[in-house]
């Protein structure tokens, strides 16, 4: 067994999932081959990099002209790779004595039973040192078929100037593989008005590219099979809901990018942010080209979660940063097998 890079299987809450940490790429926690109740749902999910712009001017780093880090896979502009920590490492700027020597020292797996207020969960979590920051990567798989991809920010404030506000733009890559289909369509939902018909609508997207969240219109997206439906006629697919805590900016320019699968060792975020600390490569290289709206595609999507951090440097965050979570959800639609069984307790 290797110290890092192996695929480790865990199960619970109706799910079987493999997890992995690549030390060579410094790209955080990955989940692979996520199966729910015997059906393949995810080929691979990861959160390989972050873009972190600071308010300016600032003494020390991040440095001009961009005042922005690119962290994780392929670090740039003062950024740092994600280094796996022992799960019991303190929430601080941890030195190398707290670095995980093997991946199993880093990853925490929990199975929680269904309760009166929610389904059972399988959660896979690891934390990573990244300069003065710590990032917690967390994937939750629920017994009702939902997936929650989360990241938490902890550690300590910038020692050069703890008062400086900044944003964390955290990038997730998700390669859904619903029942092993490669004939997926990508669609965008909008709520236009309360007047039916036509109040709500799904639109098939025919080109790879960048998309923007719009809470005012209830905007969400889905990856769905081109043909298969439930018995009652609902297309089978997974919806992607992206609530945002902050907005886009010159460095993080979108909320979701739809692309097609081009391999597992290319287009993983390593080459993002080289020319400048921004996500331009996602739209110009990764998500470039048409989508086949008839036969479907092997769809991969990227999500950027935006969080603005105004430090509480004079009190609560003066010594360390309590972990602050942000997330997006992937929700099933059109699978009878995911219905809650009689008894009301969900799949335990």
């Amino acid at each position: 067994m290797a110290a890092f890079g192996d695929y480790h299987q865990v199960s619970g809450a109706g799910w079987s999932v493999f997890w992995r940490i690549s030390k060579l790429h410094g790209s955080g926690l990955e989940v692979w081959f996520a199966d729910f109740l015997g059906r393949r749902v995810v080929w691979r999910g990861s959160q390989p990099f972050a873009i972190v712009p600071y308010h300016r001017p600032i003494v020390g780093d991040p440095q001009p002209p961009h005042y922005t880090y690119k962290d994780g896979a392929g670090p740039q502009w003062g950024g740092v790779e994600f280094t796996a920590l022992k799960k019991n490492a303190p929430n601080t700027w941890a030195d190398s004595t707290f670095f995980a020597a093997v991946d199993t020292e880093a990853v925490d797996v929990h199975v929680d039973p269904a309760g009166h207020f929610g389904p059972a969960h399988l959660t896979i979590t690891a934390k990573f040192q990244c300069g003065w920051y710590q990032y917690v990567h967390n994937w939750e798989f629920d017994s009702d078929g939902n997936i929650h991809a989360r990241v938490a920010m902890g550690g300590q404030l910038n020692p050069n100037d703890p008062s400086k506000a900044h944003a964390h733009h955290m990038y997730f890559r998700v390669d859904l593989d619903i029942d092993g289909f490669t004939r997926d369509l990508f669609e965008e939902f909008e709520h236009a008005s309360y007047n039916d018909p036509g109040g709500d609508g799904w639109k098939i997207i025919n080109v790879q590219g960048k998309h923007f969240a719009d809470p005012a219109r209830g905007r969400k997206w889905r990856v769905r099979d081109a043909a298969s439906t439930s018995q009652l006629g609902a297309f089978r697919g997974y919806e992607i809901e992206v609530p945002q805590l902050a907005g886009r900016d010159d460095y993080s320019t979108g909320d979701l990018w739809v692309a097609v699968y081009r391999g597992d060792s290319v287009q993983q975020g390593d080459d993002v942010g080289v020319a400048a600390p921004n996500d331009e490569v996602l739209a110009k290289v990764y998500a470039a080209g048409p989508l086949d709206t008839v036969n479907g595609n092997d769809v991969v999507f990227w999500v950027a979660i935006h969080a603005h951090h105004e430090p509480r440097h004079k009190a609560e965050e003066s010594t360390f940063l309590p972990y602050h979570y942000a997330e997006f959800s992937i929700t099933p639609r059109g699978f009878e097998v995911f219905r809650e069984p009689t008894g009301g307790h969900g799949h335990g």
Partner: protein
Amino acid sequence: MKRTEHISRQTRRIAKAVAPLSAADAKRAIVRATAYLRPELTRGGHSRFRVLGAELSLTRSDSKTAPVRRQIEVLIVDYLNRRHLRVAIEGSRVAEVRDLAGQPAYAADEIKEARGIAVRAPELAALTHAHGVFVDAFAPGQHLPGERRIGLRFLMASGDEPAAALALAEVDLIDERLLGYELTSAGRLIGQKRGKHGRVR
């Protein structure tokens, strides 16, 4: 709960491919990769490169019905020729060699080497003798393909207080030299207490 429960037929088919990477297979892959690349790694009879490591790397096959491809990924930094290389070994053959688009994570021994170069500066060396000082690496500035510069933050941890920055240094592992460093006011104070002074060339 049984671990085989809930597994899809697609995942059952790849049971062999997801088996852990043995130390012997990792070593064989590294030997195979370096032997294959040897002519490229050598210039004027010299070579200077570092194998960062080997990890298992699964990927989809071109055909949907074909099995998942089990590869061993070997990453190599070729300091002499300014290249970062990925070699994929599949079975006993070299399946792919390509230049990495982004720089790989720093290896622990690269950070150790960079630290050794940095502390040739007496002011930085003085810091490392103080209690609670540790060094953290980062990627300074813009890294163009093939470059291998390491930034080092010299930090001091003390009790429950946040770690304090003492100095920032930048080392070029290709030229094996300290490009520059800067002490913070806290770093200067510690340097004075240790009674050591010096300037970087």
